């Protein structure tokens, strides 16, 4: 089937989509947005987190046809609206705080953290932990991810 949707503000279409494909597969393999990651494809790790309209979802759990006609925002679109080469406050904080090691969890964590700070601009540590509990990271032990979210919360433009 042919699907039309908006990804990071751009109207896109995918042809020959098999109805069993996930939104994650369609983004990565058909639409050229490999930023969302495929770590578990079972909704457990959060690496594939994207915005579907205004809700952060695991894109591996959304059937591709469910995204038809809707707005998707991926990690590639987090700095949208900023001058070229500029990072969003959360992206910059992840870089500076050492929250990125292998980086495979990073795209999902960035979307989840963006969503957290949009809902709660000054979260407590325990609120950060609760909000990010659905995003697995195997490298960092999470301490520097906490540092990054704290740092981003002190800045504007989450």
């Amino acid at each position, binding site marked *: 089937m042919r699907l039309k949707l908006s990804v990071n503000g751009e109207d896109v279409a995918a042809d020959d989509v098999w109805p069993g494909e996930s939104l994650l597969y369609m983004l990565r393999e058909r639409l050229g947005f490999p930023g969302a990651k495929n770590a578990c494809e079972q909704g457990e790790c959060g690496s594939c987190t994207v915005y579907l309209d205004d809700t952060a979802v695991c894109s591996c759990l959304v059937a591709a046809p469910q995204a038809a006609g809707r707005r998707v925002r991926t990690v590639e679109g987090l*700095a949208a609206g900023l001058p070229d080469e500029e990072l969003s406050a959360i992206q910059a904080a992840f870089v500076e705080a050492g929250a990125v090691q292998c980086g495979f969890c990073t795209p999902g964590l960035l979307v989840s953290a963006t969503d957290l700070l949009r809902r709660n601009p000054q979260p407590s540590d325990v609120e950060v932990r609760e909000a990010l509990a659905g995003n697995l990271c195997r490298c960092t032990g999470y301490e520097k991810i906490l540092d990054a979210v704290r740092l981003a919360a002190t800045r504007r433009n989450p």
Partner: protein
Amino acid sequence: MRTPVRGPESLTQGLRGGVGDSPVRPDARLKVRGEFAYSSDLWMENMLWGTTLRSPHPYARIRGIDISAALTLPGVRCVLTADDVPGSKMYGNDKRDQPVLAMDVVRYQGEPVALIAADHPETGRRAAALVDVDYEVLQPLTDPERAIHDDSAPRLHSGGNVVRHQPVVVGDADAAVAEVVVSGEYTVGMQDQAFLGPESGLAVPAEDGGVDLYVASQWLHNDLWQVAPCLDLPESKVRLTQSGVGGAFGGREDLSVQIHACMLALHTGRPVKMMYHRQESFFGHVHRHPAVMRYEHGADRDGRIVYVKAEIILDGGAYASTTPAVVGNAASLGIGPYEVPNVAIDAWGVYTNNPPCGAMRGFGAVQTCFAYESQMDKLAAAVGISPAEVRRRNAVAQGSRLATGQVLDSPAPLAEMLTRLEAIPLPEAPQGDRDLRDLPGGVANTTHGEGVRRGIGFGVGIKNICFSEGFDDYSTARIRLEVIGGEPVALVHTAGIEVGQGLVTLQAQIARTELGVERVTIVPADTAVGSAGSSSASRQSYMTGGAVRAACIEVRGVIAGRLGVAPVDLRLTGGKAVSAAGGVLGALVDVLGGDAIEVTREFRHRPTAPMDPLSGRGDSHTQLALCVHRAVVDVDVELGLVKVVDLSAVQDVGKILNRLSLEGQIQGGTAQGLGLAVMEEILVSEGKVRNPSFTDYLIPTILDMPPMRMEILEYPDPNAPYGLRGAGEPPTLSSTPAIVAAIRDATGRALPRVPVRPEHIVGD
């Protein structure tokens, strides 16, 4: 040559940040923008998808394979079996005991049997279901002790079921007289690396009849040495390029998609991408060896150890992988960082029909650490002294001998580390109403604090750094210094694998420090340059760092020659050549002119010796590293739920090369140790894995990790580049026993097994 879209690319950064600084990672920007090319992101026009058909049985004879139905499915391009392997049918990391595709027998559940190339991954999966394999199911051998001792057990390989038996003997442990004796049997479950980026790669057939393989590996050359003979190609026609790695932790030391993807690409003449999904990943890489360990410690009334006897049994599963080296570590480090005059260790690694086990962070030193540290706590209780004190009384120091007879010839400040650890403030005792999220069970609302007990525990670990036991361990670096755009630029080319630990950052730091430049380009790791060895054994700062440094020093020598000064009198700093006296000899741009300097150097650490097969004696390690942990836990003793409240660590790293990366290693390693302590285990029954998913195999979340405090010591090792000491693995050792000791302290339970489950805390 055709190259993939979203393939590996060079990383260039112009900034300050030499050895000792914490510059921003050169790949961080790409990673936070979702633009970093992981091996699962590789893509090429016209590519096919490879699928692996795996055995559902842990042990079976293959009577026949019928691929005809699979071949008729539209979209299927080929189906390959063992008969189609062009060259050697066998490969292996240490012993070549593993078939590329199963031939007459399968020895573990998940063993690859056939390969499919198809237009869509789902087509490949459906084709795999149509391959008809006629199995004669056999009774699997799943008990490692039977594998050693029972002659009636099936012989899984022609050499028998023992992969390696390594004794370590010091003095006479049987004759030694001890006033206090403590003993125990300890068990460690099978842990998984659980890296997030699935095994994946893209093989591209080349016009010269060879193949270009883009893959996430830990050691490209070791892959090459195994892949080329199986493809019946010379090594020059198999070119490997590293692609982005989503974590490794030992799980990428063995081959996964490498040979298979190349076979499919060469057979179809088209690029073939292979990418495991999570369930397949659990079958697609080796795990940490589960272990059964029986220990007896004898000591005097003051708690000074007189003897240690230990039997260590490591289940290697169906194929050898790195089991021989894992056994070597378990044996040589089996008493821990303690002085013991009489030792009798028997360490075994065996074949069974359980999942193959091999490398995981800590590599043979994790399992024994849980056992010997549990014993130290028993000893402390038996003689009535504190856990920290019993460890201090027996602690090694510089000049001590390991059980192998090897003398620790560089700093080993264990006693000081324990004292510093004790001095780190404890978290305050909980008072009043507590936030549910801070309690065991969390928002599940299982307690409001009633039944919750606090406990404190200590753990100490010792890990060898770099390859041991006489292995010819080296790394290679190519450095090119030239003027680009009016600025001196250093290009660093190694096959050293960035797995997330920050090797790309460190290579650039070293080039800046040694060559006095700001702009450094790190080119993708590949087999066009010499081997860098594996990104394992905490060795890359030492080895590839050492190689980059050595090559840079040689570049400096060339510059000294051009300037007519002695190399020792030349420093490069701020883009200038400066004499020892501080006088500027010239700008680097002018010295170089249009004439680039290019140097390739190999770097080796001090040689090591094999262990004597009967006594275990030998200077088998080149460097050893220590870490100590203190854990504080709250345990709901009614429900058996554990919340780790606080973790503190002290580690000696010789020299801090990059504090930010180093802290990340200590925190991340500690988290994996926490996982082993309280949640992580691949459950295997009758050779079958029961929980191959992140739904059922749990790793720590951000809610499970407590705040961490750490103190990092810098006692330089005079033998190592910059005095550094490898740092990635030691924290993974000591956090597990510290957490379990804290749970014992809270509950009074013996807890001889990890991971500790609720039923171990509340059961009979």
